[in-house]
């Protein structure tokens, strides 16, 4: 879904995988849509075909308003990495395209640390959704026992909502398993090369 056709371009989209999100942002950039802000599935772009950027998404160890979060952003700015926006502890950054590929993590140790942060994030998200999903289901029992037409309708809404949340929790859990496999693979690598 998009609003506006000239300068501002808004796209609503949800990702459960950060690599896919990053790939999509770079495809948008190649088409001349440069990210300006993001919040809860709402991506805002500016049309700019003059500058070519590569986008990266990073997950901070600490929230952005903490001293370490601020220090990291200041460090990135020194390396010509431009901060665009953030959502929770995720930051969206970019760099002007050059002959060098833009990468934030270039050795195994730092890649493992970054991947572990992502894995922990998805596990926590999966747990939160599972708890909310299950608690939504438990309210159904009390609504059905009330057995009025309005409570039946509420129960149906809760069934749908609870199912969606549990399904999402399952998806995030599957996602975190794929990161576990990657971490194990990298940890094996580090045993033979650093």
């Amino acid at each position, binding site marked *: 879904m998009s609003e506006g056709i000239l300068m501002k371009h808004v796209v609503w989209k949800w990702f459960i995988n950060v690599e896919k999100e990053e790939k999509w942002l770079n495809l948008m950039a190649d088409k001349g849509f440069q990210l300006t802000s993001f919040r809860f599935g709402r991506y805002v772009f500016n049309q700019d075909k003059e500058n070519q950027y590569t986008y990266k998404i990073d997950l901070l160890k600490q929230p952005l308003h903490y001293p370490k979060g601020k220090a990291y952003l200041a460090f990135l700015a020194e390396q010509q990495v431009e901060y665009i926006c953030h959502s929770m502890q995720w930051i969206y950054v970019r760099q002007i395209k050059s002959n060098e590929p833009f990468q934030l993590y270039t*050795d195994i140790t730092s890649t493992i*640390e970054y991947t572990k942060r992502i894995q922990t994030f998805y596990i926590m998200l999966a747990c939160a959704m599972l708890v909310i999903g299950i608690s939504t289901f438990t309210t159904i029992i009390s609504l059905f026992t009330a057995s009025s037409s309005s409570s039946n309708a509420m129960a149906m809404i809760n069934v749908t909502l609870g199912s969606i949340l549990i399904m999402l929790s399952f998806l995030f859990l599957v996602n975190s398993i794929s990161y576990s496999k990657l971490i194990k693979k990298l940890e094996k690598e580090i045993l033979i090369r*650093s």
Partner: protein
Amino acid sequence: MPKQETERIALTETVYYILLSLHEPMHGYKIMQHVKQLSRDRVSLGAGTLYGAISTLLDKQWIQMLPNVQDDRKKEYVITSLGISIIKHEILRLEELIANGKKYYE
């Protein structure tokens, strides 16, 4: 410096090249360029990797941050005497590796 620490240390390529670069004061971007030049374009340091390594090296006091004397906002770092001891031990370790390698495979 505790003896045990120097004996066990095998530096990563990233840390080794950062310590070599900081024989003179440098800011982050210059470290990246210097490492690239030293390794003949083989080693590129990402900003996230460099930040993590610098934070760890500062904690270990192998490098130190210089006080900002100029108006320039970029932070500069330099190797400490502890860092120099570490890298000298690493050079000895690497020499042993090379000597043994050549003995069997050259």
